[in-house]
């Protein structure tokens, strides 16, 4: 792989209490590409994703060894600031989780907490972020309505807009379509492909067609290990490991 690496893990191990959830993960996530993580439930793909912006910090029993580098700097280094890490590496969750505020305030929340107070500047960020998430046309006339009045797919795109508003380099998505219907899913997949022009996207998915359609690279995980990581075309057409082949051909999982 000769792509420019934005996130790299080196011998990453993670325990939840006594459970060894990630085992010796070393992976390089290429910049401005969509990387998909696939594998059966409980294989550790969401855990790996949450390591990349230190969301696992919020789980008390978690313990970690190894390194996670972002642009060459260790985000678990004693001097690293978890809040600043999350500002640069945003996250979209499995179930849409808009705040119980109006649409505008949902998007403006991130810039505000990072110190943007100027109304005109906020307006601009909100508009650009909503456009970036392909939601602007649907909500521009109802920016002050509650975010919870949007449909599920719209809510998820709002959550993506909310992430864009902070100005991240990487967007982590944890099964972003699993709670959505097929049409809303297709819209999000289009969006993911478009986002990769400006951002690096890492997506965890259960849906192998989704990985095949939307991603450039795919990593297959099984029981806490990264079994194989390669170009998506390679993984789906000519997997190097038997385990990977068994999984994508539906023989287990």
């Amino acid at each position, binding site marked *: 792989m000769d792509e420019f690496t934005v996130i790299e893990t080196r011998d990453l191990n993670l325990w939840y209490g006594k459970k060894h959830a990630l085992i010796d993960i070393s992976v390089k996530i290429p910049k401005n590409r969509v990387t998909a993580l696939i594998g059966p439930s409980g294989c550790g793909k969401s855990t790996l994703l949450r390591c990349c912006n230190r*969301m696992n910090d919020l789980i008390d029993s978690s313990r970690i060894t190894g390194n996670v580098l972002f642009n060459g700097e260790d985000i678990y280094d004693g001097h690293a600031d978890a809040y600043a890490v999350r500002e640069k590496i945003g996250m979209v969750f499995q179930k849409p989780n808009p705040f119980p505020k109006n649409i505008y305030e949902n998007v403006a929340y991130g810039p505000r907490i990072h110190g943007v107070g100027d109304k005109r500047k906020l307006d601009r960020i909100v508009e650009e972020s909503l456009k970036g998430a392909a939601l602007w046309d649907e909500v521009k006339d109802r920016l002050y309505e509650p975010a919870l009045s949007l449909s599920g797919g719209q809510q998820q795109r709002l959550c993506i807009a909310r992430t864009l508003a902070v100005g991240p380099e990487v967007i982590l998505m944890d099964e972003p379509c699993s709670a959505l219907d097929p049409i809303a899913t297709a819209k999000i997949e289009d969006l993911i492909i478009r986002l990769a022009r400006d951002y690096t996207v890492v997506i965890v998915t259960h849906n192998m067609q989704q990985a095949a359609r939307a991603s450039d690279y795919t990593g297959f995980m099984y029981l806490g290990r990264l079994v194989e990581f390669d170009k998506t075309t390679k993984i789906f057409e000519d997997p190097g490991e038997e385990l990977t082949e068994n999984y994508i051909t539906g023989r287990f999982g």
Partner: protein
Amino acid sequence: MKKEQAAPVPFQGFGRPGVGTDPTSAGAKRQLVDRIVGKLLFFVALFAIVTVFFIIVFLIRDGYQIVLETGLWNFLAGQDWNPAGQNPAYGVLPLIVGTILVTALAMAIAIPLSIGSAVFIAEIAAARTKAAIKPAIELLAGIPSVVYGFFGLILLTDWIRIAFDQPSGSSWLAGSILLAVMAIPTITSVAEDAISSVPREFREGSLALGATRWQTVRNVVVPGALPGISAAIILGMGRAIGETMAVLMVTGNAAVIPDPITDVFSPVRTLTGTLGIEMGEVAFGSTHYHALFGVAVVLLFITLAINSASRIVISRIQGPQGTARPTAHRALVAAASRIAHAVSAPFGGVVSPRTSQRCAFFLISLSVVIVLAALGMILFGIVVNGAGAISWEFLTGSPRDLGRAGGIFPAIVGTFYLVGGGLAIALPLGIATAIYLIEYTAETPLTRSIRAAVDLLNGTPSIVFGLFGFAFLVIFLNFGISLIAGQITLGLMILPTIIRTTEESLRSIPGSLREGSYALGATKWQTISRVVLPPALPGILTGAILSIGRAAGETAPIMFTAAIFSSRYLPSSLSEPVMALPYHLFVLTTSVPGASVQSYGTALVLLLLVLVIYLAAILIRRRYNRAKVM
């Protein structure tokens, strides 16, 4: 995660093109704020928690003295309570028996009527009837106990004396009837919530098999709502056991065990009543003083038993999802359905399901009519008789001639002072403590024991707080009977409620919202203050308002810490005593003959004050529920 705490220096390696502010100073500042707020919350929570444990330890320490002086057995099983006699005796058995008898009979009256009413509201009433009855019953749960006591003393005891041809109406029966009327709104309201939350599909499943509505209610809905109904009964029982003023005013207060034990016309004396009667005249540090603390500790243990029982009942019945239900649950369900069958047997076996439904619905509707008639009679009596007393002078003047003339202005203002002060103490302490417990600590044995202590105080009878305030603030700290002592006592009384309701409210905010905020790089305090607190606010507010209502109507905690009967002036400093509406009503009713007009007027003013406060809470909750649907 451990590594996060080891990151005191903000990492400055990441630029911020998207937002475009100066990364270093803003980042450092918000992290500093985050740390300061965290420390501040920790110290406030620590203070509140230490206070909670201090109260419990203080009561137990002084209560233990009586065990040293008389021996545990003599204290608990002694049949004679006579602290003022030639040979003082300190046996609490008659008081315990009195408490149990009054509570048991009250529950026997209240449970069928309450559950009948709850079933009626949830299952039978038309939507419009339900919309009218439900808030009305919730509102009635807020009527101050001294108002019930007043009513009981004036009408109920007379009625019992005449109707049953007894020398005196002040009796076990009077206490039980009054407590039942007081507990019914609480039980009905909570049980109705439980019945209404049984999923619709259960009902439809039963009706689709051709069952009648009554069969569905009896065999599907009520068993399904059993955990909630049990919780409602336990809650009502706790309220009945902890009640002081109403009981003290109508039970006759003779410390005897009824002979025969079923003699409902015998006077009795409860544990709480004893504290209410004797606390004011006890000498500091005497055996009698220690005996009263012993009584308080007995009440504390009863509260503990009730709390544990409710926790066990609820957790056993709900059980972990997907596992087999434990035997206790099966036994309860079996018992409930057996009772239901027994009740309906006279019409169940022989007559058609349709007829049995008609009979059952008739009985249920009858229970609603009884409840509404009893409560309506009390309200009607007070409003009609009290309206005549209300005048400009009554509301703005000072009392004259021991309250037989003049007004109650100092009492109205005094009540506001007491409640305002109590709230100013309890609200910041309680909210900060709840935030700390929910947002900053993980579930550990320590937080569990804190929660248990808070729960214990939450269920502790208000008179026990009165005893603590009197012994510690008034006597030990030498505050004297003063406004400040009353404010602190009321504050301590509502502190556990505010902690618990705030905790519940914070816990109802889904974790995914916090994650969403953290994922955008927000600090802990930014997340709490901007994402968690705003939607939790209506719940916190409702809890606070209900506490205000409770504090405004309470007599027991201020009786010996702050209140005086007749004062022409408002207190000019915190160290002076004040008048208060509930205490004024209590003294007018029990000690001043010929002031019945003023009593009715005071009762009406107090009633309106408290009902307005409760109405506000109900309206806020309703608005919040509607907002949530959107």
